[in-house]
């Protein structure tokens, strides 16, 4: 019989009194292996060096520091703790931490301060028992084998049907990872019909949304929000639905609601900033991006896009007379951070300079010119593709900064890279009337569509020929290059060198220049690992 006494413990709390008090409680309970940490960063470091069986993590580690939930998320995503480990969130007040918790990563238990020795002993005993009961499931999770997770759940339920509710979440996640969409939908429906569980609602909404059943997803979120109006993750899902429906104002309102409930959320703040920018609500955009930047400083979701977004929102908010000193200072600080922290990213270097130049356009034309000059030089030697949003903003700012020619060439390359996407072409049309740019992608896009049709009939030789023609017209187009690469890979033996393999690799090398935020990045990686045998 296993017992927690022989296990290793890590106590994470910023109060030394608390650490020593819990440490002595554990000692009195016979636990020998106890380590402590006073910050989340230290905890992560310690977990990377030693695998702990129990982590007692304080939720609030001080303002401006990683909180317990962020530590948990980092531990899980960097696989620093096993699923068999027990993670207990210690809080002064539990409901608050629960609202802040993401639905994906929940701690094994919450423990509310103050607690006494018998209370601690009881929790540890029980958590140990539960982990032992679920051991086969947890080990399968560690191995990353969803099929084994499912089998372990079935075995446990067979052993004792009363425990089947404990397996529901594991079963759902496993089905999700196996892309067993129909079975997953049935499972979610069954759970919700019996007991309304927030994660089941969120999971069902996400599944329907992923399959393009936007209306049904919306119905699920509407129903869920009636039962759980305090669950931020449900608002996030609803916002996705509204964006897909083209209702960006509605999506903004929903996200603002989620942020009222749970302001500590870097990605949510950044998304709100983006939506508010699209809605030309610069006040909200700058506030949200500011939060995303300051919270992001401690988070794994730190993202230079938020800094750039903040600067952009502040510039857009400014009047005809230019920006006040305080605003310019804030823009300067936020952009300097981007330039300093991303020295080897040419795209960010260019964008930070152009953004700053734009902010100085009215107040300091000389510096603006100098920065523009620097940006142009870097732009000249840049190979990587920017995302369409970034590229279009760069083009617009170049136009504003008197660099019409550079702006036009930026639009041209954007039309080449993303020309098959009508939404991008629509945005390009807002910045130029030049028919050579606006119609440049039509022929290639037609050929690309034709190629896809031919590919589906199974005629690989002809499909490749059509894709080749399309790529000749637009050599940097991501979709076409991906399609050609895939058609070349189809039926080609990657273990022996061949002309097809060579050509395929060349295509993928080109596609590799796309930003990793692109929706097609996953597809690229899959093809790449096949073609290069990595």
């Amino acid at each position, binding site marked *: 019989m296993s017992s927690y006494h022989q296990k290793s413990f890590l106590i994470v709390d910023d109060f030394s009194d608390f650490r020593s008090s819990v440490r002595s409680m554990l000692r009195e309970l016979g636990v020998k292996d106890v380590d402590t940490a006073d910050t989340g960063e230290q905890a992560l470091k310690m977990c990377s060096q030693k695998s702990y069986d129990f982590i007692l993590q304080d939720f609030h580690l001080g303002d401006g520091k990683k909180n317990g939930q962020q530590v948990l998320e980092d531990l899980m995503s960097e696989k620093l703790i096993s699923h068999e480990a027990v993670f207990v969130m210690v809080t002064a*007040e539990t409901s608050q931490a629960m609202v802040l918790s993401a639905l994906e990563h929940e701690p094994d238990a919450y423990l509310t301060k103050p607690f006494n020795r018998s209370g601690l002993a009881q929790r540890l005993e029980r958590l140990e028992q539960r982990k032992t009961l679920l051991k086969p499931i947890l080990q399968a999770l560690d191995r990353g084998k969803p099929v084994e997770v499912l089998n372990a759940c079935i075995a446990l339920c067979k052993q004792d049907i009363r425990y089947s509710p404990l397996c529901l979440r594991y079963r759902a996640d496993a089905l999700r990872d196996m892309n067993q969409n129909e079975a997953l939908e049935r499972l979610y429906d069954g759970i919700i019909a019996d007991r309304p569980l927030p994660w089941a609602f969120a999971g069902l909404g996400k599944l329907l949304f992923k399959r393009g059943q936007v209306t049904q997803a919306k119905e699920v979120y509407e129903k869920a929000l009636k039962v759980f109006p305090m669950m931020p993750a449900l608002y996030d899902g609803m916002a996705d639905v509204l964006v897909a429906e083209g209702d960006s104002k509605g999506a903004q309102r929903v996200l603002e609601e989620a942020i009222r409930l749970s302001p500590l959320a870097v990605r949510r703040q950044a998304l709100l900033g983006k939506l508010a920018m699209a809605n030309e609500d610069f006040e909200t955009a700058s506030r949200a991006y500011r939060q995303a930047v300051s919270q992001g400083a401690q988070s794994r979701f730190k993202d230079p896009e938020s800094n750039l977004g903040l600067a952009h929102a502040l510039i857009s908010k400014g009047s005809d007379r230019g920006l006040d000193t305080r605003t310019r200072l804030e823009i300067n600080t936020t952009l300097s951070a981007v330039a300093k922290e991303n020295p080897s990213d040419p795209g960010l270097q260019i964008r930070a300079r152009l953004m700053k130049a734009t902010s100085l356009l009215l107040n300091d034309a000389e510096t603006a010119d100098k920065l523009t000059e620097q940006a142009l030089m870097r732009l000249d030697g840049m190979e990587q593709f920017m995302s369409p949003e970034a590229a279009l903003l760069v083009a617009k700012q170049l136009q504003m900064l008197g660099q019409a020619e550079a702006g036009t060439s930026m639009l041209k390359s954007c039309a080449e890279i993303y020309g098959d996407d009508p939404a991008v072409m629509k945005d390009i049309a807002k910045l130029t009337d030049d028919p050579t740019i606006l119609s440049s992608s039509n022929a290639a896009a037609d050929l690309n569509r034709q190629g896809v049709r031919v590919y589906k009939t199974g005629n690989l030789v002809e499909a490749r020929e059509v894709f080749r023609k399309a790529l000749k017209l637009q050599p940097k187009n991501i979709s076409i290059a991906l399609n050609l690469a895939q058609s070349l890979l189809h039926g080609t033996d990657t273990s022996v060198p061949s002309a097809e393999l060579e050509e395929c690799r060349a295509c993928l090398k080109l596609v590799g220049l796309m930003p990793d935020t692109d929706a097609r990045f996953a597809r690229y990686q899959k093809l790449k690992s096949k073609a290069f045998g990595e």
Partner: protein
Amino acid sequence: MSPIDPALDFSTVIASTVHDMKNSLAMLMQAHSQWLARLPKELRDGSEQGVIDFEFAHLNGMLVQLLGLYKLGVNQLPLQPAYHELDDFIEAQLAAHQEVFASRGIIATYEVDPLSPLGFFDRELIASVLGNCINNAIRYARESLLITVSDEAGQLVLSINDDGDGYPAQMLERQADYVQGINHSSGSTGLGLYFANRIAALHQRNGVEGRTEISNGGPLGGGVFSLYLP
């Protein structure tokens, strides 16, 4: 009331003060238990110790309840229902009062219907209700306290029984008033009933709301507080 509202209303001021008080109390309790551990045994088990432990738990329970009432008022009490193992849940609540039971010589036991080992509820909210009830029962119990868990027509029933004199007749008659928050004249008990009932009612299933009930008798012959969760 939104958090961006610059002018704080009085209840918010109270709530954040209570929050601080609760943190202070937690530090105090912790320091006290560390200090106690260093005392020689004969000093450790004095009768004052029982009073201190009981009042600590009582204070903490009241503060938790106050925060809960505030959140109910501003609609910020999130319901996080999940399946919980009932024996674990009840053990945890009893363990939190372990010292008080020991110093008062109260024997606390529980019985869980083996056919329904799991319950579906918000662990923290129901724990705060149960904590207050146990605290209250300790005040009136002579030597035993019993928590039973059973299943009544698909509803989960948690009952806290004591062997004291039971609730006064007038309270039993007018429990509907307390529950609705009409009569708070009996102080903390009345408020506690109101709080408990609001939290029970947050738990719903197919249109049926949870509820509370107080009565006298039960297996120990004293007061019985029952929580019905659909």
